[in-house]
């Protein structure tokens, strides 16, 4: 999905590169997609019977995502040279994608805190600290 998005975003710049970057990204995205797409399609078909709302929601989100990618990075602005107009969009998109690891960092820090408290409790059992 990320590679496919990059291919869509970099499409307007295709002519300015000697190497066709969008084609390269699209091929990589398709290859990695084919490896997973069978499982995802199986899942969506099976869940369409069980919970149609959920599958429709997912399909709608994917479609709207692709539509908004095209609208957020309009090739007309990029091709006319007004790239500054959409730098904020790139920045926002990057921020939205990068925000993901923060959740794992937060989770791992809470786990680490739990482990530290457990270790401290264990030490307290072995070596009882004097109460003040």
């Amino acid at each position, binding site marked *: *999905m*990320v590679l496919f*998005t990059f291919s869509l975003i970099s499409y307007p710049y295709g002519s300015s590169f000697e190497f066709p970057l969008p084609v390269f990204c699209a091929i990589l995205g398709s290859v990695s997609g084919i490896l997973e797409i069978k*499982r*995802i399609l*199986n*899942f969506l078909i*099976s*869940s369409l019977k069980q919970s149609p709302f*959920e599958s429709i*929601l*997912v399909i*709608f*989100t*994917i479609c*709207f*995502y692709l539509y*908004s*990618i095209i*609208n*957020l990075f309009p090739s007309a602005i990029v091709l006319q040279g007004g790239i*500054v*107009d959409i*730098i*904020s*969009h*790139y*920045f*926002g*998109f*990057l*921020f*939205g*994608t*990068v*925000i*993901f690891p923060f*959740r794992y960092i937060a989770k791992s820090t809470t786990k680490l805190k739990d482990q530290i408290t457990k270790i401290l409790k264990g030490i307290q059992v072995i070596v009882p600290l004097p109460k003040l």
Partner: protein
Amino acid sequence: MVGLLGNKTKANHIRKLQKDDLQLTLIVGLVSITCIGVFLLPSEIRNILKVRHGVFNPIACITASFVHDNSLHLGTNLCAFLFTTLPLYLINKRINEQKYFLISLLMMFLVLPLLNYGILFYLGIYKSIEYGFGLSLVCSGLVGFTIPSLTLYFKRKLEKFNSIFF
């Protein structure tokens, strides 16, 4: 006794979900009303709320997201905001990550504009444009957020699916 405890935890879970739903409704409603309210203000006041090139004003960075100059800009941005926020919230709710989504949404309103306008305007990358404003920055953040949300959704769901079928 066990049944009573189960009912209690269920009731707590439902209460928590309702609280999250209420928070999202509040955020979406507040954003929409603020955007429309700011649009109805005189252009002089709207210009004060925008981010200006070369001047780093943290409050203006946050208020700039709610400023729009024409109705088409406002309409498309609000529609995009609603069409990205609601499905993403529902997807995150299905995998019990609604709290993470709400925190991320708040970060997109408070941290993202500060970073974006701070870097682009203050460091002078954005020299050709005098003002910075619009909800499209938050919308693009939400579009970017679709990738981790769907990845997490498919990861969780496919794990369950594979354990049943394979």
